[in-house]
């Protein structure tokens, strides 16, 4: 199973409520997958680069992190949320910061101008509470609650997977050619961190975009190059995209009003969205790419 949700706000006045809306949508999808939950949320950006890191032992690993980073890189922003820490720093310090964080044994969850990623094992309700997701504002976001099939139930096996700056992917389904694709990507120098099939899907999309494809072209490419079942929702700096495999046995429903575009595995997730009774509600077609960008 797995439950996936996405929300793209057209109405900027709703931005402070993005985290609350997305969290409620994700909690409603809990019984599609109890193993882990995650959310990628896109804020306003413009403050440099944000790096989200995770530690299984935050009390030790985050102790002194601020001072160490400041010593090495100068003034940085640091916000700690449970097992995650979000660093904000000038774009030219990006690579130095990542090397330093990795050297300290921290896991990089995601990097980007606007994107922050929060994911852990556990139920959506508990994961959302740990990170206070409800209070986060933003322009768009995607979320996932996992029923694990292809790899272990761990923080790194949780979705969303980010394989390039401001890009991430959530997936309902399972890919059957992910090992082959992982090797193909590795030959091109694209390295994945886990044994997970979805990470390969994310890396495939990122590598296509890095090679010059548009988001739409990269999503079209998944239909050709990835084998298996998938309903994908991918987040980018400017919006989000949806694509389903040609068989389309993994559910998907979308809703659009003047205020937002919403995606979910099931209609239930939309029940509390404002104006849903008069929204345009439809099922995305198989093998058809949809995206919304600002």
């Amino acid at each position, binding site marked *: 199973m797995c439950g996936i949700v996405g929300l793209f706000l057209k109405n900027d006045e709703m931005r402070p409520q993005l985290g609350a809306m997305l969290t409620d949508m994700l909690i409603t999808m809990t019984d599609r997958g109890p193993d882990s939950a995650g959310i990628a949320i896109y804020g306003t950006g413009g403050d440099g680069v944000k790096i989200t890191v995770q530690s299984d032992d935050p009390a030790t690993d985050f102790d002194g992190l601020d001072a160490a980073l400041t010593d090495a890189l100068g003034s940085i922003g640091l916000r700690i949320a449970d097992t995650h820490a979000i660093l904000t720093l000038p774009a030219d310090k990006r690579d130095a910061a990542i090397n330093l964080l990795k050297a300290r044994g921290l896991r990089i969850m995601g990097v980007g101008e606007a994107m922050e990623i929060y994911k852990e094992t556990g139920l959506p309700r508990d994961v959302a509470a740990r990170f206070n997701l409800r209070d986060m504002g933003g322009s768009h976001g995607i979320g996932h609650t996992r029923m694990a099939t292809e790899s272990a139930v761990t923080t790194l096996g949780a979705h969303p997977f980010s394989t390039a700056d401001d890009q991430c992917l959530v997936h309902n389904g399972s890919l059957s050619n992910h090992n082959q694709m992982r090797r193909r990507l590795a030959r091109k120098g694209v390295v994945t961190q886990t044994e997970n099939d979805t990470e390969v899907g994310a890396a495939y999309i990122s590598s296509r975009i890095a090679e010059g494809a548009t988001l739409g072209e990269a999503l079209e490419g998944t239909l050709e190059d990835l084998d298996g079942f998938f309903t994908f929702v991918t987040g980018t700096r400017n919006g989000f995209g949806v694509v389903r495999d040609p068989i*389309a046995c993994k559910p998907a429903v979308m809703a659009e009003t003047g205020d937002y575009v919403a995606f979910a595995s099931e*209609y239930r997730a939309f*029940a509390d969205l404002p104006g849903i009774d008069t929204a345009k509600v439809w*099922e995305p077609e198989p093998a058809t790419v949809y995206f919304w960008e600002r």
Partner: protein
Amino acid sequence: MQSLDMAATDLREVNATLQAQAAQTNQTEWVIENPRGSHAVAVGLDAPIHVTVKGSTGYYCAGMNAQATVHVQGSVGPGVAENMMSGEVIIDGDASQYAGATGHGGLLNIKGNASSRCGISMKGIDIVVHGNIGHMSAFMAQKGNLVVLGDAGDALGDSLYEARLFVRGSVKSLGADCIEKEMRPEHLEILADLLTRAGADATPEEFRRYGSARKLYNFNIDHIDEY
């Protein structure tokens, strides 16, 4: 008019109440408020009652329906009216995958679109879709009528048995052993009756009929090596 509010009443209680209605009940008019996309709403009914669902539902709405009329004022998730025996299920919006799957009887009337696998393995149900249907619809359909006012997706009627398929719009592709067939007077009659019952704004002459070439499910001695 009896009302069941799903904001205050457990799904099982809602279904148990409706399932408990006797064939001679005086309480024939029911309304379900606040379905909020719930699964398995109004399933297993077996009495001539009329149930109006005020909003959209999730998986398996009106499954196994017999005698009852279930009218959903919204869209439905996968598997609406699965294995329906008799009665009528009306969907004002769209239906997701495998609408009317394995249905034995009754009328499933979808005012919007139905997605993939509509009428898969249907066994006598009549399905009228006012919009389009998705790929692999009427796969292995055995009996009954599928009427589509819009277009049909890929592989319509793959491995078809004896169900009749009527499509007004285009058919993206036909599945294995499904062919276009001549529209005879008795088919126009069946179609006219179904269109009237479904309140569809169309005339039988606008449709094309598709059915089984009967080559796949009949044993053919020339194909013995392929078995």
